[in-house]
């Protein structure tokens, strides 16, 4: 049971959007532009950053749903998602993605912990200003979404399979309400 009276049976953040459509609108717009809008990073890479940060924040709803979206978008390369989230290995990812995930991990703990060396390292692997900007903002945004979902104790389906359809829908249709 969520801490506030939301509609039963609607999972995670969707129940909160329904409770408060006024704030749901800019939150969905943010997710859409950040994860689907024009960016040098692919949608699958951006979903992976989102799932990675949510995993570190121990937010099972966001982690499972964005991991499912990432698996859908990575398609035949979907093993990279489980390699990263379950086996803790980034070996199958590009050096650039590894450097960006390192920055995302820093942002998850605290913005100040990102160092000039972290940025320099990402640049050496080919990241540009927009890659770095988008990585930091995705990691920061999921530091919000995760707290919103768990801070109100919203309904979190337990099994990975429960997120399959959700991930497909997020992959195909994005985040328009």
């Amino acid at each position, binding site marked *: 049971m969520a*801490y*506030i*009276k939301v509609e039963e049976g609607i999972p995670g953040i969707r129940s*909160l959007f329904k*409770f*408060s459509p*006024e*704030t749901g*609108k*800019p*939150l969905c*717009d*943010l997710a859409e*532009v*950040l994860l689907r*809008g*024009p960016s040098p990073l692919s949608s699958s890479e951006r979903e992976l950053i989102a799932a990675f940060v949510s995993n570190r*924040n*121990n*937010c099972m709803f966001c982690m499972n749903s964005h991991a499912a979206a990432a698996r859908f978008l990575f398609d035949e390369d979907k093993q990279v998602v489980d390699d990263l989230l379950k086996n803790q290995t980034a070996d199958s990812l590009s050096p650039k993605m590894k450097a960006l995930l390192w*920055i995302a991990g*820093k*942002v998850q703990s*605290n*913005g*100040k912990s*990102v160092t*000039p060396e972290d*940025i320099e390292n990402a640049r050496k692997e080919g990241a540009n*200003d*927009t890659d*770095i*900007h*988008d990585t*930091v*903002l995705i*990691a*920061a*945004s999921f*530091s*919000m*979404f*995760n*707290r*919103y*979902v*768990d*801070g*109100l*104790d919203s309904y979190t389906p337990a099994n990975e399979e429960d997120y399959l359809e959700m991930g497909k829908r997020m992959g195909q249709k994005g985040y328009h309400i």
Partner: protein
Amino acid sequence: MPHIDVDKTLPGIRSLMAFRPETAKPLSALAEILLRDTEGLSPAERELIGTYVSYLNDCFYCHHSHGEIAVCYLDGDRDLVEAVRHNYKEAPISEKLKSLLQIAGKVQKSGKSVTPEDIENARQHGATDRDIHDTVLIAAAFCLFNRYVDGLASIAPQDLSTYPERARQIVEHGYGSHIYSKQAESPKPKA
């Protein structure tokens, strides 16, 4: 030095919004509805929650800029804002706001650290579902804003006398695109 090539004449989040207007739009719309809505919590209470969370996150730019906005709404009562930053439990504010600041402080650490007892305590002091929702989302949103501002090392002016003028702009004109446009330092009044 900011980590990316932003307009160095703009401070903090304003420089990042100018760099990426696509994401600035939903971020400023979120700030506008969350911090200036007058249903339930007042704009002053909302800004105090944002200031407190930014202070806990040690985000110099955000806790000073939102602290100044709260000062504006509170008719210049800087002592009250200082008291909330440093020890809200002893501050001259309502018990309801204290119970909500307790929830906000939990959210700052982790969403999971909010307990049913924290929620029950807020309800006993008169908080509604809407108040609790808005408190959690304001606290969560500042965990975004603070990380965005510091994660890209945007410029935080050290001269505190520059903060009140920008605060007045927000109080008068809100969180619209004027805050990151080229005319940010001298906004035109609303038509």
